[in-house]
């Protein structure tokens, strides 16, 4: 079995104030994912390494890291695709807690701010009856509902890097996803949050969020469709007085 070298940016606040790079030699074959490599480091080389992971199959969204400066899921990144150096860092634009573990609190706050759940007051008052939705109605938002909240799009977004108050790709996409849902009546409650400077209007359509999204959600499209909706919302409010 061959080996490859990966360099990990370590940060151990109790030992050192500054992060440092540490190289590790890991065994690889065609099926070795970056997450497998991190497991090997932790189990066999240095047990002090901290990183998040859970499902190993790109659905929990826990193992996001920067690989050579690009946000990626560790479980969906394979070392066979890298010839030269492999530099692993914690997700960009988030405060680092320890090694590859970042503080995602602000991301969770942004998610909660857009009320990402079905809002339907009329339904709540009625008896327990299931919603009905046609395949066409489902198709309108389905792509945007595939988000796994991994946060890669926030690490790809320079606007979030410049201004952490920007609601960001995933939260705005989720807001748009519920606004497009035929079962939802909460658009009026979400629009004021979207239609402000730190909402959709902070996006300049760099589009890198959609490039790095491991679930092909295309958050850039959702955010910019949100701009169209926000503009409509403003115009309608203007005429209503």
């Amino acid at each position, binding site marked *: 079995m061959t080996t490859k070298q990966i360099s990990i940016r370590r940060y151990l606040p109790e030992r050192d104030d500054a992060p440092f790079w540490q190289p590790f030699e890991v065994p690889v074959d065609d099926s070795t994912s970056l997450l497998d490599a991190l497991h090997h480091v932790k189990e066999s080389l240095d047990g002090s390494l901290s990183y998040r992971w859970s499902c190993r199959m790109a659905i929990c969204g826990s193992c996001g890291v920067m690989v050579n*400066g690009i946000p990626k899921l560790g479980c969906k990144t394979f070392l066979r695709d890298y010839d030269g150096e492999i530099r692993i860092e914690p997700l960009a634009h*988030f*405060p680092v*807690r320890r090694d590859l573990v970042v503080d995602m*609190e*602000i991301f969770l706050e942004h998610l909660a701010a857009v009320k990402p759940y079905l809002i339907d007051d009329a339904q709540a008052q009625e008896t327990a009856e299931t919603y009905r939705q046609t395949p066409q109605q489902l198709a309108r938002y389905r792509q945007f509902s595939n988000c796994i909240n991994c946060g890669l799009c926030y690490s790809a977004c*320079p606007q979030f890097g410049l201004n952490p108050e920007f609601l960001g790709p995933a939260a705005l996409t989720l807001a748009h996803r519920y606004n497009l849902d035929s079962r939802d009546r909460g658009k009026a409650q979400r629009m004021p949050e979207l239609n402000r400077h730190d909402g959709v209007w902070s996006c300049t359509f760099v589009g890198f969020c959609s490039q790095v999204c491991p679930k092909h959600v295309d958050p850039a499209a959702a955010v910019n*469709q949100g701009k169209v909706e926000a503009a409509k919302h403003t115009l309608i409010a203007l005429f209503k007085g």
Partner: protein
Amino acid sequence: MHKPPRAHPPLPRNWWLKHRFFIAYMAREATVLPLVFFIVCLLAGTLALSRGPDAWQGWIGFMGSPPVVALNALALVASLYHAWTFFQLFPRVMPLRLGDRSVPASLMVAGQWAGVLAVLLLFVWVFGRA
């Protein structure tokens, strides 16, 4: 509950030099610079027109000087590059549906270029006869 102080790592000024995707984005945004020059030229032209024949001839001379021609040629290339990026992004921002079927993005991009061609032909027809 105790929360650690939030310290978001600042983005270095040269962030956009670190990936070719960001360089392409900045190039797209920078297309506005030569286009501003072109707009100023046009405004100066209309001002010269209102000031009489001498001013107009002066403006014609200015527009014919090599650096101005070069800058305006750059503005043309910049506007075409911007149009190319814009046309690709458009179907993602304004997806069209006809009945139950969505219009393919490639068709919308082709439609926009056909529009450019139509405007170009119209200009040739209007100004080509003068």
